[in-house]
């Protein structure tokens, strides 16, 4: 939607869907899914991909003209995350980093203390930091305060497909944020992505919902439409919820029988 650009760290995007690549059954399916999703920005785990290796997922992104968003998946300390981000910047020549600092392997939930610490260091180092965070409005605000270019709260744990478990927290985060809020993790199907956009998120980031679907290419297309639909609905402004019905057909000017006065 050209009249409604999505600006992230000074770069303007048309698509509001950020894709991940983890879990794709093959490079071919991944490529067709990325095309179907319409994404212009896709995240790659720097610990699992060598930027210099030819024919890998990075070559696919390059061929499709999709911008790479390196991420620090698999890091448990601020120190590891900072090091990984710096190596990514050196290898890919981008200041963008999706910052992930994970607390444990079972939940893959973010470690808020390490995350804030790493975010501060990387912002000072000139990075455009997009932190993967809990759906905690206070932490979101602090991440924004240290200079993050966006906040990316989880709807539910990575790969769980449980959707947005606390929409109210998302509303609180969106209401206070002056930077884009992006749903990161938890989307399981199209309605989850649409809901995020209706709640005022500037974008949606997802991987497993597409890559682990039975038909990834179809789900990618579904997600593209869901993000667009949710965004349009958000901009349009939904009608207030009412307890009783209100007829949608106009009643003004329609002939009416007056029970007090017979029609003849």
């Amino acid at each position, binding site marked *: 939607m050209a009249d409604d650009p999505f600006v992230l760290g000074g770069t303007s995007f048309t698509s509001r869907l950020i894709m991940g690549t983890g*879990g794709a*059954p*093959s*490079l*071919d*399916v991944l*490529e*067709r899914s990325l*095309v179907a999703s319409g994404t212009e920005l896709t995240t790659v785990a720097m610990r*699992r*991909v*060598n930027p*210099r*290796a*030819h*024919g*890998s*997922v990075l070559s696919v992104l390059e061929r499709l003209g999709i911008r790479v968003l390196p991420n620090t998946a698999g890091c448990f300390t601020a120190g590891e995350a900072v090091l990984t981000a710096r190596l990514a910047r050196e290898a890919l020549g981008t200041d963008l980093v999706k910052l992930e600092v994970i607390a444990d*392997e*079972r939940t893959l939930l973010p470690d808020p203390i390490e995350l804030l610490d790493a975010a501060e260091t990387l912002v000072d180092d000139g990075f455009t930091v997009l932190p993967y965070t809990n759906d905690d409005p206070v932490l979101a605000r602090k991440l924004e305060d240290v200079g993050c270019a966006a906040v990316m709260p989880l709807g539910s744990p990575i*790969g769980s497909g449980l959707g947005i478990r606390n929409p109210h927290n998302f509303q609180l985060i969106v209401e206070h944020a002056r930077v884009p809020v992006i749903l990161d993790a938890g989307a399981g199907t199209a309605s989850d992505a649409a809901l995020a956009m209706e709640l005022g998120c500037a974008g949606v980031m997802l991987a497993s919902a597409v890559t682990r679907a*039975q*038909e*990834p290419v179809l789900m990618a297309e579904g997600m593209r439409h869901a993000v667009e639909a949710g965004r349009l609905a958000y901009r349009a402004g939904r009608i207030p919820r009412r307890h009783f019905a209100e007829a949608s057909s106009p009643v003004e000017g329609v002939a009416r029988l007056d029970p007090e006065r017979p029609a003849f």
Partner: protein
Amino acid sequence: MSRTPETSVTPDTTDAADTRRTSDVLVVGGGIIGLVTAWRAAQRGFTTALVDPEPGGGAAQVAAGMLAAVTELHYGEQTLLGLNLASARRYPDFAAELTEATGQDIGYRRCGALAVALDADDRAHLREVHALQRRSGLESEWLSGRECRRLEPMLAPGVRGGLRVDSDHQVDPRRLAAALVTACERAGVTFHRTWADRLTVVRDRATGVVTADGTELSAGQVVLAGGSLSGRLTGVPDDVLPPVRPVKGQVLRLTVPKRYAPFLSRSVRAVVRGSHIYLVPRESGELVVGATSEELGWDTTVTAGGVYELLRDAHELVPGITELPLTETRAGLRPGSPDNAPLLGPTALPGLLLATGHYRNGVLLTPVTGDVMAHALATGELPDEARPFTPRRFGAAALSEQRA
């Protein structure tokens, strides 16, 4: 130079090429795929040469050797399933023939496999896999956790259920590679123990290779079977260069001491928090644990993290492994193609054929690859079961069509 009735695709070579020609078929790459191709070509009466610094090396030295047509079935890979099953069916005869030709046992073991779930999420996933297998006409049996542990008492008490697949067997890839080298030697294949440096193309036809020591090897037909290195041979025109990339896999080998035997009696596998783990027990007592999947280029470093993750997940599946000696850690490179399926047969460049991109299924697909390549060398065409795997599916036109 030998000529057989089967060389119906006799290249119409110029006199100059004819004088330099040293074989009917030249195979570039001496991993199991290159070896089986050379063996089958020689059996058909082609004079055959193979170039590789170390024939019998490559990914087969690391691979576990699960012949897992059923348990490796993934959504969207039903076409590949057909080829995998065709090859699995050929294995008993293939193993017998290879043993007869060489006197070597390749460790073909009809042991079956068990895929288990360790928690409710894994269980739901495995149920879906079961449904997919049944839709695809495959036989597998759903077992309760208790039944799984009755079959394999070393499994963790936390196993919640599993799929018993009696048709997924195993072979020892190292023995397979060694036997194929012997079979090639006995069938008269000439080995050039050096690297192929460059493909020679004369008037839009592949005519041979130049090796690292500068020797020119000429051939009527060249088969590129270089595994993960297949995309790197210089001189191959861009539009026929196979889109193959290395996908690193770290694999551990433990040893089951006699007093613990049999420990496990079939291949056991699971998905633990998204990572695939398998344990393949050999009759010799070797227990292979694999494998990581990493996109790091031609890197074969064994890392602490790789070993840790494999041991962690294997321990969750079979706690008793901590008592076993850890005898080997090694990393290999799977030749990954864009759709995970191999590239077989003639390319758009006359005289050049491919046998590469077998990814996770190289050991399984060895018998069918040999047959398919021999057929392609003799007739210039792929047999029906291999048609979908033509390298031409990755031509520029095919890709743009897919995208549209």
